């Protein structure tokens, strides 16, 4: 047997990553910023479990163990039986089958994967793209944008939106007739982006959606941004409004920014300069003009209508359009002028940048990102560039430091 030593040269990155990170041997600004974030926590503060890799042995008792030697094997783990030379069972070792953090609840030991893909839960707000109309239902692609040819993606998890699960033109609940079935394409057609809620989960993994509330439905006059789904955390509001005021408003925004977010939520009367964002828990995010979201188009006329009456109003509109056999385009009535488009692209690129950086996508982070971009007067096309990304990470680190205090 030869004695040898195997040497590995330190890896040297030679090409530019598409997020604009230059990856060289020496750490660049972004990497350093990342480290600041990692130090700033609160990852370290809120004490996640140990990080394990596939095949690592897990100590079933844990550091805070109270002497229990029995355990329950949960997800992400397996029991490896080790034998000695004579084929006798020596001991059992608990090993991880995914990379992730170890979580212990009483006796149950699980490994929760880092950045797992989207698993639907009842009540989740999701944004999907209609891929197919079959029978009485729309099939809605929930993973990425299925209409784009991208890396083989898009074939992912699929939701089913039943005809009976949407509010049809004509208002009140009634039986769905074959005529409704024929007119399905007037409600949503292929490549339409639809916002809906998860109604139930089937055993075979398909997801039943519903769009019965007035706030769900077709999303228009905007753009779809896809980020990794685990970045969209569970939060109170999925329908956000970011207002882009005038100069004096911006100054007010600056002072507000110090206190955290400069978001004006529940913005009555749809400010024409605002941008609306729909956060789907499946990682699809719709960024649009104030009229792109179903409910808001009613608000531009009257503020005080409650959702039910406004819903029926929109239904009537819909019915009208369905009779004409024309697609409804709310955005066209309200001119999408250059200013609105500019704001939309700013917000959507901020969301994209946040997604690329793997930062959580929340109202706060988007608001701060947009605020930063506006304060620094960064053009939308430069938002995904390295310079701005670094500043974004810096800001996030500062935010987390503030949390820690």
């Amino acid at each position: 047997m030869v004695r040898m030593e195997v040497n590995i040269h330190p890896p040297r990155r030679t090409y530019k990553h598409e997020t604009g990170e230059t990856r060289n041997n020496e750490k660049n600004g972004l990497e350093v910023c990342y480290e600041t974030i990692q130090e700033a926590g609160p990852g370290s503060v809120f004490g996640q479990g140990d990080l394990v890799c596939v095949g690592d042995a897990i100590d079933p008792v844990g550091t805070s163990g109270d002497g229990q030697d029995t355990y329950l094997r949960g997800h992400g783990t397996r029991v490896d039986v080790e034998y000695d030379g004579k084929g006798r069972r020596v001991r059992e070792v608990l090993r991880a089958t995914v990379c992730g953090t170890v979580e212990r609840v009483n006796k149950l030991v699980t490994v929760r994967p880092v950045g797992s893909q989207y698993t639907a839960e009842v009540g989740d707000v999701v944004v999907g793209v209609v891929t197919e109309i079959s029978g009485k239902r729309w099939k809605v692609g929930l993973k990425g944008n299925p209409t784009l040819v991208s890396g083989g993606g898009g074939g992912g998890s699929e939701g089913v939106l039943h005809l009976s699960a949407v509010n049809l033109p004509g208002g009140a609940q009634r039986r769905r007739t074959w005529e409704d079935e024929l007119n399905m394409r007037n409600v949503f057609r292929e490549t339409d982006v639809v916002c809906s809620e998860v109604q139930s989960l089937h055993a075979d993994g398909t997801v039943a959606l519903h769009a019965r509330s007035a706030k769900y439905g077709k999303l228009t006059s905007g753009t779809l941004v896809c980020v990794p789904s685990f970045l969209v955390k569970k939060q109170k509001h999925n329908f956000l409004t970011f207002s882009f005021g005038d100069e004096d408003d911006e100054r007010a925004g600056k002072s507000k920014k110090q206190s955290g977010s400069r978001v004006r939520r529940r913005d009555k009367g749809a400010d024409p300069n605002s941008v609306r964002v729909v956060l789907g828990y499946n990682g699809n995010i719709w960024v649009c003009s104030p009229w792109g979201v179903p409910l808001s188009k009613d608000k531009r006329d009257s503020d005080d209508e409650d959702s039910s009456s406004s819903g029926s109003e929109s239904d009537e509109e819909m019915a009208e359009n369905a009779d004409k056999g024309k697609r409804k385009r709310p955005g066209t009535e309200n001119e999408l002028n250059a200013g609105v488009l500019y704001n939309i692209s700013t917000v959507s690129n901020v969301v994209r940048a946040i997604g690329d950086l793997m930062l959580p996508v929340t109202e706060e982070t988007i608001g701060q990102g947009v605020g930063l971009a506006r304060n620094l007067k960064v053009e939308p096309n430069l938002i995904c560039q390295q310079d701005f990304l670094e500043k974004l990470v810096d800001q996030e680190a500062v935010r987390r430091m503030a949390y820690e205090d």
Partner: protein
Amino acid sequence: MASGSVGGVLGGDLRQDGRKWNELRRLTCDLDVVKGADGSAMFMMGRTKVLASCNVVPMSTSKLKRSGVTGNRGGGGGGSAPVVELRVSWAPFAMQERRERGRTDRFIVDLENALRCTVQTMLNSSSSTTTRTKSSSSFSAMGSTSEVQIKVVVLTADGGVKSCCVNAVTCAVGMANLACGNFVVSCGCTAQPIGKTLREARMLQAQGAGEGQKFLLDPNSTEINKHMELSLAVTVSGERHHHQDVVSVMCDSKMTPEDLEETVDISSEGCKAIGKFVRKTLMEYMSKVATVSLH
């Protein structure tokens, strides 16, 4: 010292590219390079460069019916391992001379089969050992009816393509958070000893080259052209003193049993180093994502 090169080894102990006989090429691995894929990795061993991306999708009903028989056989109830679809494509510019390799190319078909087996080993080993306790090993709501689609693109081929593919696929699968028993890594070694021909032996003698330097670890294409290649894939484990299970040994040339033993030994040492590297890369990525994405 004579300046002529013998069998890829220059005068002294160095090879043509300046490595010692037991040195790996520079390893580079970039994760998350394909947008829209669950897991993707660009793995580079020297100039060999392979891109792998991995997607988990629910299995279509037609496929489910077709594979109904095989699925039951493999699974035995509980959580059967997902079905693996694997495609390898070879960039025409991958080698020095331009060459198209179609879907039916012998080399591609070989590579696809080998890789598919490797991935299945990786995914199966998680469920086979867990049959003891009946809870399913599935990590997502998709359960056992999911299908793993893996796409591998060979961008540059400079020796060790098989090994590089295995490593790239491992990284992609690891990043996609598929439940797998162990990672599989692979490393190559020249299959035929240096100094086999009389002329080479004489030159080696004249140079006074050391004993025991018959095989070269992680050869590049020049070395493979001369000495052929043996590619070994083994499982990698977390601990230092843990055994490696051999997953596959691939070799196109004739070998004596003694040579086989020695080359497998050498390759397995290389695999250890690569395994360490793969683990480190994945852990770095995971810890970054885990901390940064926290709210």
